[in-house]
């Protein structure tokens, strides 16, 4: 009887605490320019969930995007009126203060039947303020009528029917603002990752008309300094063999999934392993490099990459892992991306010693 009473007391106390401890973001004062609700920014017209951009909010895509647990993404950029981005050959473009990058994450209800619609999970904003970029995660409600700022992030149960008809389910983790900085940082500065020349150099349909994004940006006054297109780097599409060989597609996949941290001025520079597109030194790329601080992930392997031997390479073990202390990337995925794993394994397999 005593046991039951203490269990009862425990659960009543827990209930009271859980109600009492709920944090109300509306009570905190928001910084200037930061809104509690996504609708307040006025990016979209009509039903918010349709993501119909107003004039000045321009959609964009990347040739090879980040893997985020099979979430699909809808990206937009809004430059302050009359301002332009500045072209950069190697890194993300220079965007003027006031630029907002908008990234919406969603899952189809059924991947085989797009007409069944989608469920928006989160929208991430990167706002270029005078002091630097600020990252803000917004979480969509079940009714899909609004997304609300959650600085501490959130966890949402999502499920969808995959292309093979199988149901997939996931505790989707919306990052907190510190986790945003965990990837979106170079040196000590927050920076966008996606919109670079090589990633934007591709075709997108604008009002039904397919155009090269960079040419469109230049034409509409969004971009200055664009050289002739033939001189602009172009990233292959990781899963389209016609756009590049295995090595090129593996390198761009690593660049966009890992290179923001694994570069000399990125948060994983402590490892000495550099996976961004510009790394040429085989030792720093991980070839026959001993792992640094890999913890339990290194339980069966001795080197980051062993040419010809993907299963003896820590890079592969990390991509295959679902243990949060061992997997890579550290944040942003929980599932294994089987399709790109195949590509990376093939790249290592084809490496000569």
């Amino acid at each position, binding site marked *: 009887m005593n046991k*039951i009473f203490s269990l009862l007391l425990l659960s009543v106390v827990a209930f009271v605490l859980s109600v009492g401890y709920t944090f109300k973001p509306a009570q905190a004062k928001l910084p200037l320019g930061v809104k509690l609700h996504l609708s307040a920014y006025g990016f979209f017209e009509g039903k918010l969930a349709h993501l119909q951009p107003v004039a000045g909010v321009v959609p964009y895509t990347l040739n090879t995007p980040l893997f985020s647990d099979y979430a699909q993404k809808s990206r937009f950029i809004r430059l302050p009126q009359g301002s332009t981005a500045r072209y950069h050959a190697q890194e993300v473009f220079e965007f003027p203060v006031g630029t907002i990058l908008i990234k919406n994450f969603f899952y189809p209800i059924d991947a085989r039947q797009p007409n069944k619609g989608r469920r928006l999970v989160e929208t991430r904003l990167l706002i270029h303020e005078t002091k630097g970029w600020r990252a803000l995660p917004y979480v969509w409600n079940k009714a899909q009528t609004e997304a609300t700022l959650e600085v501490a992030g959130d966890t949402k149960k999502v499920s969808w029917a995959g292309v093979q008809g199988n149901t997939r389910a996931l505790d989707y983790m919306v990052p907190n603002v510190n986790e945003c900085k965990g990837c979106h940082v170079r040196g000590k500065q927050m920076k966008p990752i996606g919109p670079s020349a090589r990633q934007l150099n591709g075709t997108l349909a604008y009002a039904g008309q397919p155009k090269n994004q960079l040419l469109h940006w230049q034409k509409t006054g969004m971009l200055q300094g664009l050289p002739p297109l033939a001189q602009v780097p172009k990233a292959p599409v990781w899963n389209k063999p016609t756009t590049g060989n295995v090595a090129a597609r593996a390198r761009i996949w690593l660049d966009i999934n890992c290179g923001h941290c694994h570069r000399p001025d990125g948060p994983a520079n402590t490892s000495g392993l550099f996976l961004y597109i510009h790394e040429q030194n085989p*030792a720093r790329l991980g070839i026959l490099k001993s792992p640094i601080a890999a913890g339990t992930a290194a339980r069966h392997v001795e080197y980051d990459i062993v040419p010809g031997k993907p299963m003896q390479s820590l890079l592969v073990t990390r991509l295959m892992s679902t243990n949060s202390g*061992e997997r890579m990337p550290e944040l942003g995925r929980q599932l294994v991306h089987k399709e790109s794993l195949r590509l990376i394994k093939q790249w290592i397999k084809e490496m000569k010693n």
Partner: protein
Amino acid sequence: MIQKWLWLIIWLGLPCITVAQDSTYKQWQTRLIMAQDGDTIHLPAGVFYFKKSLSLEGKNNITIQGQGMGKTVLNFKHQTSGAEGIRLSNGKQITIQDLTVQEAKGDAIKAIQIRGITFRRVETEWTGAHEGIKGAYGLYPVFCQQVLAEHCQARGACDAGIYVGQSSNIVVRYCEVEQNVTGINLENSTRADVYGNLAMNNACGILVMDVPVVMIDNGGQIRVFDNKIVANNHRNFAPKGAMVAGVPSGSGIVVVATSRVEIFGNELIDNRSIGTGVFRYDLIGFETTYDKFNPYPSQIAIYNNRYQRQAVAPTLHGKLAKLRFAPHKVPHILYDGDMDPAQKGKSVLCLRNNQVLDQSPLFANIDAANGFKHIRKNEKDYNCQLPKLPKVWVGL
């Protein structure tokens, strides 16, 4: 009948505990995000389970204050996101004290790019048998300056209990480290005082090592003194690819590839394989041809230490496995004898006033470069002195 109602209320209440945990995470993480420079964040007593890492980013002059080791306990055994329990990054003057971090899926507390990081009365641990290797580092400052770890406890890490990497101006003192693979591990770090610690029942008590292909190529100017290094004969349960996997179980204080190290005033008792070892990188680590890295240790001063061991066989492995010593004839100090050609004519190793309280020889040059063929117990050849390293200040 009453019982049935009670059970119903219990089953309704238990899910609320889960909600309470998730909202504790949100509450604490929000406080860390909203903290203003100069704030102290008080954490209550209790055991708190978290599924995600807690992170403090880009703040200055913050103290994270628990109610005490074992009193404020953060447990990460249900962790599904984040590679460490607590992450502190990009800041100045951060102090974390009086709490315990348990069962992180990766490292317990990581501090990266902080100038002025203090760990005080912090306990990190992984419990349970080591069949499934767990964790990695207990305390993990990396790329930091002005690092202080004092009165901390670290237990059960499959790499290092207290690790300091690619950092400078470091003091690790009055800590207790046990049942880790390495109790305290300094890597590619510069200017460190490691003193007054107890390292017991680890595979290796204290390891000072440089490793290749990282941004800081070599460390140095490390003083390891007045420590009690006792019975570090724990099985080496490091993952195969870990840098420390090559350190033999039964090691007291080992220096690998680092230069300008002073080891003095320590009590090294019952470390069955190596009381103090001085080795070139690839004797312990893996093959490397990285040209920016110096694999040779040099200017190592070992003096005023006391050595004692029981007459048991050493447990050497890896490249040292072929070394054979009879149980009562294991020299306390082992030097691999492979000298850096660039150091010719200079003092690579100096030994003075070390006391042996048993029948074992003090020292052997194990001639590692020649397959241990000509082992020489020639400590007299190393009777020299090196310039003393200065005391390390961490500005506190």
